[in-house]
């Protein structure tokens, strides 16, 4: 097993475990949450949080679980993982001084870069699908029924957002030599996006509007992806990948 494959498997496994560890208690907490929704609503300090609770309550278990898995866990830890996996993709090689031997082999730069992009993209997206696939089984423990198809569609939608963040970070990695700086900058950007999501007047400018609770509830209800969101996100990823390839072709080790 090559170093790259092993690294991919380890990263994917670690991310899957983290998502699952967050998912299990969240699902098992559903009955308590449902029974104490009114009391919880009173505890919420601001309007956006109260609205979020309303959405959980009105959509039942599926809405609550989507909120926990996709809006809470994937939009925060998922983006952190995407940024972490992408920031070191090329900048990490330059930082360690291994860029030259990586490029000195008789393999095209395009191939090397796309292999690396793909392995990281799989390590970001696969755990989202794998952990989401366990939701129907976990929901059975709290006597709820959640459709596997709906969860996989939500996972596909979430993955497009994560891939956009991943590809953007990957692009900056092909230009830079400081993976830590690139990672911090992207994390700060995502925190800023999350912060403005919670501000009533600025929320429409947040990228998290593309993957929030109402979006996932809509996917569950319609059992289809919202192409008006998914296609632009995939397009953004494609643009960043093409830009990465072009930048990498001229990169000096």
């Amino acid at each position, binding site marked *: 097993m090559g170093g790259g494959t092993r690294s991919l498997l380890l990263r994917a496994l670690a991310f899957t475990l983290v998502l699952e560890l967050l998912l299990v208690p969240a699902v098992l907490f559903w009955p308590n949450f449902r029974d104490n929704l009114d009391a919880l609503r009173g505890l919420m300090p601001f309007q956006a949080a109260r609205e979020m609770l309303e959405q959980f309550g009105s959509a039942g278990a599926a809405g609550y679980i989507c909120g926990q898995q996709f809006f809470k866990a994937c939009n925060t830890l998922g983006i952190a993982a995407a940024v972490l996996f992408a920031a070191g993709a090329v900048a990490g090689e330059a930082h360690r*001084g*291994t860029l*030259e*031997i990586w490029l000195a*082999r*008789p393999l*095209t*730069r395009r191939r090397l870069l796309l292999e690396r992009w793909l392995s990281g993209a799989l390590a970001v997206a696969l755990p989202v699908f794998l952990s989401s696939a366990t939701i129907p089984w976990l929901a059975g423990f709290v006597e709820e029924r959640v459709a596997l198809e709906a969860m996989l569609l939500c996972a596909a939608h979430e993955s497009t957002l994560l891939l956009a963040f991943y590809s953007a970070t990957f692009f900056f990695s092909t230009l830079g030599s400081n993976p830590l700086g690139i990672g911090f900058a992207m994390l700060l950007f995502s925190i800023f996006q999350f912060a403005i999501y919670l501000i009533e007047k600025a929320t429409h400018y947040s990228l998290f509007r593309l993957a929030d609770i109402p979006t996932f509830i809509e996917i569950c209800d319609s059992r289809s992806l919202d192409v008006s969101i998914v296609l632009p996100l995939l397009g953004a990823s494609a643009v960043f990948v093409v830009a990465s390839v072009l930048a990498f072709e001229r990169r000096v080790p």
Partner: protein
Amino acid sequence: MLSRSMDAAASTPKQGMIRVRGLTRRFGSVTALSPIEFDVGPGGVTALLGPNGSGKSTLLRCMVGLVRPDSGSASIDGVALSGDGTAVRKRCCFAPGEISLYKEMRGREHLEWLLRGRERESRARAVQLADAMGLPLSARVRAYSHGMKRQLLFAAVMAPRVAVRILDEPSEGLDPSKRGAILDIVESDARSGTTILLSSHHLGEVDRVSSRMLFLHQGRLVRSEDSAGVRAQAARTLRLDFGSQLELPANASRVCSTLLRLGAKSALTRGQRAIVQLEQADPRPFLGALAAEASLPAPQGIEYGQLSLSELYHDVYGVEAV
């Protein structure tokens, strides 16, 4: 020598040849390579010499496509450099000078990683070579010393069956015995017909293995010498030891002008010695005139027919070589 290279431009490059034509590269306002032209091979060891920052590594990186030249062309083993240089790198092996390996990999695993894209048999040869050098291939690379990492990279570069190898400082950081072993392998490989271009700061090793030397200075190829040329130059080189009398600048200047009057092509002083270049290989007419010259002190010693690479280096760069 350079004109000979220009003549060769008209011919098509042969198998195992390295051909560089008008290669230039700038980094911002810094000119790393001015137009450089030379042919190397087929076969033999050619050394690329020059002080730090002379452009050796940039030249080698440009030749294998790791750095895109601004203009000019290069071909290796009959394949022209284009795009990202993958076609050229398939025809040659390149060992970078700056060595950083993946510390988390084991030695054997790293060899396989380095040989990705090469023929399968090269892995067995690399392992054999690494074993012969005593490398612990089951240990992680983080446990390797600098010299062991250098040897691991060397084993990976020498294993594939290619017509050309380009080695940037292959023995840097090795102790003398390990350096000797590596040079034995380089020599043996060159004897089997491989063209080897190596850059080095160690004049001793260059002296030992190379049949030709390319001198780079401030991004320009300032001189190209083969071993026959060095021998011919040595046959015209005379060293006269005048003792402490030469240490006074006025005396040194007077001695030089007298030596030139006696028929020397050039004369300079270094320490207590005057170094004279003669027009012809036979020193007897000049020595006869020197013996008859009453204005010069009698030399305390005379050396003839010796020219070390460090003197050649001094001659080219005007500084003492390492």
